[in-house]
């Protein structure tokens, strides 16, 4: 819909592209996500948090479909779905806690029915189809969305999921974040398909490829796919083509396998600058707005960091208390033992 500088590619854009509040919210949330990622990186680098996968350059995907989601819809995220999670009511604190090694980060206070982040790749696709099966069984009008990296589409679970979503006509939307890289593995050696979207043909489901750096495009296809899902009209596979401008995670060093030039080229089409250009062309965004936004975002993040750093440490009994509805006797003894030692532990080794 928009070119890299933010100029419309077609004479007429869909109506929502004139909804300035929506456009501003798209922009605001992409900026918010990028700032959050930067802070998460800083926390990891300073030893205050564990490994973290950023969304740099891919903000239009999670924010785009996140804005099209309704509260009652269900999100089944993977580890790089921070944008979708934030949009669906998961708090910055919860995300910090998760990557900070604390299960309480998966106990979403608002998005109670969303799945916790899936680290085992592609498994989330099957969970999403299961959730959609329950929703269909109960004749509810709710969409289910899950997200997966382009590399993850090589897993059998991805294919099993789209296949059953097709034959059972499930209201699930599969978002492929095609950021071109699976850690160090580029698409050229991941699959022989020209597009990831065409993998949907193997399941007989509708499949679309979209510019994942154009949030208007992402929002539009997501919105339509969710409406279709809620209406019981079946599944959609959406390949959002983007680029991973960051390392795979804080534990990765992309310079080992990826050229500077490629990375610089990647910056040309990044989504925030593009939407900014469009907003400005509509006179819908000023430097004052930008200043205000930066401050607002910084404050929100600071508050979350403070809450995270002052969050009470987990207790040894937390290892046990939600393992079963009722803890078996022999494990109760282990729990007591762990509590008794809890104090002694320094967290260091030996």
């Amino acid at each position, binding site marked *: 819909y928009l070119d890299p500088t933010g100029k419309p590619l077609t004479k007429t854009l869909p109506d929502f592209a004139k909804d300035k509040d929506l456009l501003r919210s798209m922009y605001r949330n992409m900026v918010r996500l990028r700032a959050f990622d930067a802070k998460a990186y800083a926390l990891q680098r300073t030893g205050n948090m564990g490994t973290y996968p950023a969304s740099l350059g891919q903000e239009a995907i999670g924010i785009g479909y996140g804005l099209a989601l309704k509260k009652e819809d269900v999100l089944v995220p993977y580890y790089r779905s921070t944008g979708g999670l934030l949009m669906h009511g998961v708090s910055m604190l919860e995300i910090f806690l998760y990557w900070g090694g604390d299960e309480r980060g998966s106990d979403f206070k608002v998005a*109670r029915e969303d799945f916790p982040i899936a680290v085992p790749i592609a498994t989330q696709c099957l969970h999403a189809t299961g959730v959609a099966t329950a929703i269909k069984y109960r004749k509810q009008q709710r969409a289910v969305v899950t997200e997966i990296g382009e590399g993850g589409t090589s897993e059998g679970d991805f294919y099993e999921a789209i296949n059953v979503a097709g034959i059972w006509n499930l209201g699930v939307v599969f978002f492929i974040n095609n950021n071109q890289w699976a850690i160090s593995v580029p698409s050229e050696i991941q699959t022989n398909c020209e597009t990831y979207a065409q993998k949907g043909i193997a399941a007989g489901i509708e499949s679309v490829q979209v510019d994942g750096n154009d949030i208007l495009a992402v929002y539009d296809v997501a919105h339509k796919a969710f409406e279709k899902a809620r209406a019981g009209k079946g599944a959609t596979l959406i390949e959002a083509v983007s680029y991973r401008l960051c390392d795979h995670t804080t534990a990765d060093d992309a310079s080992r396998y990826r050229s500077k030039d490629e990375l610089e080229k990647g910056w040309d089409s990044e989504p925030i600058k593009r939407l900014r250009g469009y907003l400005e062309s509509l006179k819908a965004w000023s430097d004052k707005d930008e200043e205000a936004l930066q401050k607002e975002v910084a404050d929100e993040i600071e508050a979350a960091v403070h809450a995270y750093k002052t969050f009470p440490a987990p207790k040894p009994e937390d290892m046990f208390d939600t393992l079963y509805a009722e803890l078996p006797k022999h494990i109760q003894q282990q729990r007591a033992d762990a509590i008794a030692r809890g104090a002694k532990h320094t967290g260091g080794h030996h």
Partner: protein
Amino acid sequence: MAAITLIEAVNLALAHELKRDNDVVVLGEDVGVNGGVFRATNGLAQKFGKDRVIDTPLAESMIAGLAIGMAAQGMKPVAEMQFEAFMMPAYDMIYNHMARMRLRTRGRITLPMVIRAPWGGGIHAPEHHSDSPEAQCAHIPGLKVVIPSNPSRAYGLLLAAIRDPDPVLFFEPKRVYRIVKHEIEDNGEEYPLGTCFVDREGTDITLVSWGAMMHETLIAADKLKLEGISAEVIDVATISPLDIDTILESVAKTGRLCIVCEAPRSGSWASEIAAQVAEHGLFNLLAPIGRVTGYDTTMPYYKLEKQFMPSVDRILEEARRLMQYK
């Protein structure tokens, strides 16, 4: 009240829960019109409809993954793996997800689901149809692993498994599917999970087993009686979480323990029971802890399966050996 087989008891329990609770659904390969390759779901699709007794595409990771997603929404899926060894494509789902959901979400999402599978050898089945992989499942925290040994327990324990708020693996000894009959009243009364059953009281030696091997074990106990050896026989039934107290009490009384199971010896659940007794009941032992198990090799094709599986003779010989110790 007619006497029914174990497979009929499974069918009865499934029908009971499908009738009682609309959140219960059955899914798997060929569970629909065909009623399952062993007929566990015989007639259920016809009775409860195809949206509650669901023939799935052919993929086990998918079946487990679907059930996880459905259970997360509060449904109570009962998934069937057609044979125990075909559960392995779903091992990742079981290990990394099914067992962990409640804990990792601190109780926000729970999985009231059951995975059933025919289990064990002895029916002259083709390759990969006769394994006993209970130990690699019971080693996973967060699961319950149940193996009924007879029709009544299959009925009562399956009811409990379906009603349990946590995920349960329910392994059905296929060799026993049709060889024993019990009179069962379809009264919806469950048997408790996590409790052993003492099937024979005895004073000289404790014989512990589960699943199909309970039958060889009980026969052995009868024969030992004729030799003047009084054997206490315990059916573990729920191998995880393990009711070790019942076993320890028995060993405190008898001083001798012999554990019987079909799986390859090393790393079997018989080893876990032996380890716990060696830890908590060592000084009650008059004799070494005996394990009569499958050998440390792959379950052979069927011509040799009988030679792989523990026989009444092997149990008898081991029991007699242990009786030598005074």
